[in-house]
């Protein structure tokens, strides 16, 4: 699709004697940038509305009595502007403002985190005076003032540009910070109640709070994580892609002496613009966890304990075990959703070629056979929805997806469009979440399990989806709703709406493309199709019949088979059993199966049960690519050069041990191989692959819409999703970040609360035969007979404790009556 460039009305003006043609309505400061003239500024930010707060950008405009703030002044035909480059008036005005700003700004640059990359420092040097006339004592404040556990404020450094408050208001929608007090006491602050009860304060707990630190033009906002840890000029910056969710944010990792010190949002207008979420920014210390594996482990035959082993020994033992299991029940491969597309491809090829099985699945969460079909029919190889499409959409509908919690950049784009032109959002959800509220979404309150029925029958949704460019977003959670994905595909087809599947993890979409699924080969080729198999066999130079033709088992079936003793071995990537629908069954399967090879970063639950543990590199220590929900390739290079090896390289070595040359050990080679099979613009693979063209596509599933479970007295239907900040293992090691997470609560409707006799804050216990969790109640406007709890937050480890997924019936009671 070619983008039509809309015709823009322009005006001509003169800046510093140079004639400029700028779009009508553009700001003078932007027009000056066009011709390379940089006017100093603090409050101005291209992605925020003009404010004119700092006055640093004053310029001389012919015909005006006084200098004009170029960051709020639109261009006009024939306007004659003189900046500090050619006008003494502008130069003097800017120097005067700079002098005002520096009156109370401390000269603590040598100890300030911002020193070395500070717009104030830089512009004071370039546009200020070298001597200050101010001899009095500067204002002092107690410092730092934590406005959340992560964001610290040094008020004396603040120049009141309001970039942070404007960001929180205009972009994130979290107006938790504002200008407090007045006149010379004016300062950024959060609500503080009684000093004796700080728990009543309303801290800056926004999922996007870290962006304010990045856009602060002085050192007033710093992060607890990075404060005093490094100087900018000692850091090495490497571009990087975020490994957390499927948004695919561009990032920058700043590192020093083999450690990442901080991460910043990268600038990618097509994806994350200049923002990221706090998880992406702050959650990276898991790679330095004390249980990080650096050497292979092998289970000692005598002691039965894991012991360190050399790579050759570990690979030999692993290969022998897998080879034996291959002929004795087979090997199941569970890869998890955190892999790069190259690593996922390596697993996919290893399973088919080395293990001769299609028993491979990347899904580490509740899933369904319907979803397996849907991934083949409506996800693999499809790149028809992008972030930019959100800005053009007539309406967006979210089903099984809470965008702020599960894909924060989709949320930001939708909110931007909502504020700009009132984008109509609709959601099928149990209650109006904060994210939906900030999108002004029309929420059709729905009991989990009934989403498919609502989506299929709602005239309102049908009308919304018929709007020009409408997008239907379905989250991975819809897999656990019978008929959910079938209905979504059908409705999208009928209304002409675009359909986007949004998984939660960075590696999920890539795993679909790479064929880490029981029914799909790379490039979305169906396993059952002989032509597809022969394409893959030809690409891999395999003899006919080597590729297994029978569809494999999915994660649940692999676990069930292993538990029943039908499988010879399991090869497990980064999978946490606690994420699966039934963690207990997964652990029993790991215990029951004869041989387990675990490729792991840390000594996890799986690694502890493995016979061979092969350590692999975290994202920062390898090169690779993620494929985000759009299907966009997000390549990244190695940030830290260590001896750690990627999953693909380990699998390549394992293959060699089995006498096979998989050729996936090198990233470039893996990319070439994958690009030959899937339409992915991977770096260094200019020739497009044969991809799906002319190939068969899996049929769209046609499962009838199921109904929600019907709770009896004392029961409720379980609703849940993950909080963005929770117990996720990639968030380990950062208490400052964890302190800004949302408080876990059990949400119930007014009438459900009345039935239980509880009010806000009273303990509510949600239980199953396996266990129970107790959380404070929060009475919410939602469907009766439903209880919502976070999936994996402190005190609410749903899968682990209850062993159920969303939509299940649970027992509900007042706190403490059930243990």
């Amino acid at each position: 699709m070619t983008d039509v460039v809309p015709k823009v009305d322009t005006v001509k003006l003169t800046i510093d004697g140079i004639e400029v043609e700028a779009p009508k309505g553009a700001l003078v400061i932007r027009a000056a940038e066009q011709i390379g003239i940089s006017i100093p500024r603090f409050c101005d930010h291209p992605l925020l509305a003009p404010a004119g707060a700092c006055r640093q950008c004053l310029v001389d405009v012919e015909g005006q009595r006084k200098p004009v703030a170029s960051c709020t002044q639109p261009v006009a035909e024939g306007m004659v502007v003189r900046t500090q480059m050619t006008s003494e008036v502008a130069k003097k005005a800017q120097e005067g403002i700079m002098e005002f700003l520096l009156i109370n700004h401390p000269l603590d640059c040598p100890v300030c985190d911002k020193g070395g990359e500070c717009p104030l420092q830089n512009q004071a040097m370039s546009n200020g005076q070298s001597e200050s006339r101010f001899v009095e004592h500067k204002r002092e404040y107690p410092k730092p003032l934590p406005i959340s556990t992560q964001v610290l404020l040094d008020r004396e450094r603040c120049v009141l540009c309001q970039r942070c408050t404007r960001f929180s208001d205009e972009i994130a929608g979290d107006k938790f910070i504002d200008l407090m007090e007045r006149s010379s006491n004016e300062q950024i602050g959060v609500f503080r109640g009684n000093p004796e009860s700080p728990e009543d304060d309303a801290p800056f707990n926004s999922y996007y709070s870290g962006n304010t630190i990045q856009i602060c033009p002085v050192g007033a906002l710093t992060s607890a994580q990075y404060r005093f840890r490094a100087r900018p000029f000692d850091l090495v910056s490497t571009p990087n892609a975020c490994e957390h969710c499927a948004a695919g944010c561009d990032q920058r990792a700043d590192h020093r002496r083999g450690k990442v010190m901080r991460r910043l949002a990268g600038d990618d207008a097509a994806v994350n613009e200049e923002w990221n979420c706090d998880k992406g920014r702050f959650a990276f210390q898991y790679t330095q966890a004390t249980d990080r594996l650096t050497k292979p482990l092998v289970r000692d035959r005598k002691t039965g304990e894991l012991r360190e082993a050399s790579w050759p020994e570990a690979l030999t033992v692993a290969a022998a075990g897998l080879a034996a299991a291959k002929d004795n029940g087979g090997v199941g491969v569970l890869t998890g959703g955190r892999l790069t597309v190259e690593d996922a491809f390596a697993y996919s090829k290893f399973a088919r070629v080395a293990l001769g099985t299609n028993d491979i699945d990347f899904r580490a969460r509740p899933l369904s056979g319907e979803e397996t079909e849907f991934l083949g029919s409506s996800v693999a190889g499809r790149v028809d929805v992008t972030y930019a499409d959100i800005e053009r959409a007539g309406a967006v509908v979210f089903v099984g997806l809470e965008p702020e919690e599960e894909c924060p950049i989709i949320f930001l784009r939708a909110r931007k469009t909502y504020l700009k032109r009132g984008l109509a959002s609709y959601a099928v959800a149990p209650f109006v979440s904060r994210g939906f509220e900030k999108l002004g979404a029309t929420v059709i309150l729905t009991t989990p399990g009934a989403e498919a029925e609502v989506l299929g029958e709602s005239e309102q949704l049908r009308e919304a989806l018929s709007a020009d460019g409408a997008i239907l977003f379905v989250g991975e959670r819809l897999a656990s709703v019978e008929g959910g994905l079938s209905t979504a595909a059908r409705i999208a087809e009928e209304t002409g709406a675009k359909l986007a599947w949004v998984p939660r993890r960075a590696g999920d979409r890539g795993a679909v493309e790479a064929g880490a699924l029981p029914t799909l080969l790379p490039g979305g080729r169906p396993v059952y199709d002989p032509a597809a198999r022969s394409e893959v066999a030809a690409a891999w130079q395999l003899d006919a019949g080597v590729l297994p033709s029978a569809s494999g088992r999915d994660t649940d079936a692999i676990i069930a088979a292993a538990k029943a003793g039908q499988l010879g071995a399991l090869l497990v990537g980064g999978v946490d059993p606690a994420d699966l629908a039934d963690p207990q069954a997964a652990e029993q399967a790991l215990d029951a199966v004869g041989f387990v090879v675990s490729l792991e970063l840390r000594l996890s639950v799986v690694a502890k049960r493995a016979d061979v543990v092969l350590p692999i590199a975290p994202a920062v220590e390898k090169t690779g690519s993620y494929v985000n929900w759009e299907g966009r390739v997000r390549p990244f290079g190695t940030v830290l050069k260590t001896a750690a090896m990627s999953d693909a390289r380990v699998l390549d070595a394992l293959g060699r041990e089995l006498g096979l040359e998989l050729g996936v050990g090198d990233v470039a080679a893996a990319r070439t191989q994958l690009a030959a099979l899937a339409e992915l613009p991977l770096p260094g693979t200019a020739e497009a692959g044969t991809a799906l063209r002319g190939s068969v596509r899996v049929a769209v599933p046609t499962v009838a819409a199921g109904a929600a479970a019907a709770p009896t007295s004392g029961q409720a239907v379980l609703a849940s999703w993950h909080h963005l900040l929770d117990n996720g293992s990639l968030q380990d090691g950062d208490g400052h970040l964890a302190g800004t997470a949302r408080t876990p609560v059990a949400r119930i409707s007014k009438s459900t609360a009345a039935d239980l006799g509880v009010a806000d804050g009273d303990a509510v216990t949600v239980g199953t035969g396996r266990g129970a969790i107790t959380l404070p109640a929060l009475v919410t406007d939602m469907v009766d007979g439903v209880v919502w709890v976070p999936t994996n937050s402190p005190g609410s480890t749903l899968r682990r404790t209850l062993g159920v997924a969303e939509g299940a019936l649970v027992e509900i009671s007042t706190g403490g009556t059930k243990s």
Partner: protein
Amino acid sequence: MAFSEVTRERARQIIARYPEGRSRSALLPLLHLVQSEQGYVSPEGIAFCAEVLDITKAQVGAVATFYTMYKRKPTGDYLVSVCTNTMCGVLGGDKAFEALRDYLGVDHDETSSDGKITLEHAECLAACDYAPVMTVNYEFFDQITEDSALTLVKQLQNGERPQPTRGTRLCTLKEMAVQLAGFADDRGDDVIADGPAGEPTLAGNRLAERFGIAVPGFDPETPITKKAEEAPKPTETLPKAASDGKPAGDGPLPQKKEEAKP
């Protein structure tokens, strides 16, 4: 502390005065309303305003800390404000303030130990012609002296309600806050000095007349016109600055909600 049903009902009335989607504008009267019940803007009061307007506590706090008429500590029944700006200050306001400070044993923005009087020095009260002035719960006492100020405060402490020089009879600060929140005042029948300009206001004019001082070329008979009637001045026209007239932080459109689908 929960607010009374009367206050909640008044809050509803205040919000109803503003166009839909613009309820945030009701914040100023709501803060007065909160003061009418608690005597100051307490953390609970801020939470109350945030709740009824569906904005954050930080947004309420920002407004509440900006204006001096919103008190952040419990106040007495009477807010005694002595003007200490230039004109009143040199004419005796400073001395009057010091006298009250010494007598009450409290400084600016503090409340006497009997809980009756909150003292503050005020910025210009716009009554320089009657300088030095002070106000009690925003009612004027003109041309005060140290002694008259002290006497006045002692009367207040004794439970008397002296008559202000202008305006109407005194009420308590909480009662005044109800009026400031925009609820009718039942004291309107005995307003004092509600007429043409008083002698001190015209003193300068009389002097000018006596000595024949006049602004050259000024016609005192020039009719006062409304701004709209004036011909627009042909000044240099620039496009309107992008930030003008648009408060930073205009909230999103109101939430639509659908009925539950079982």
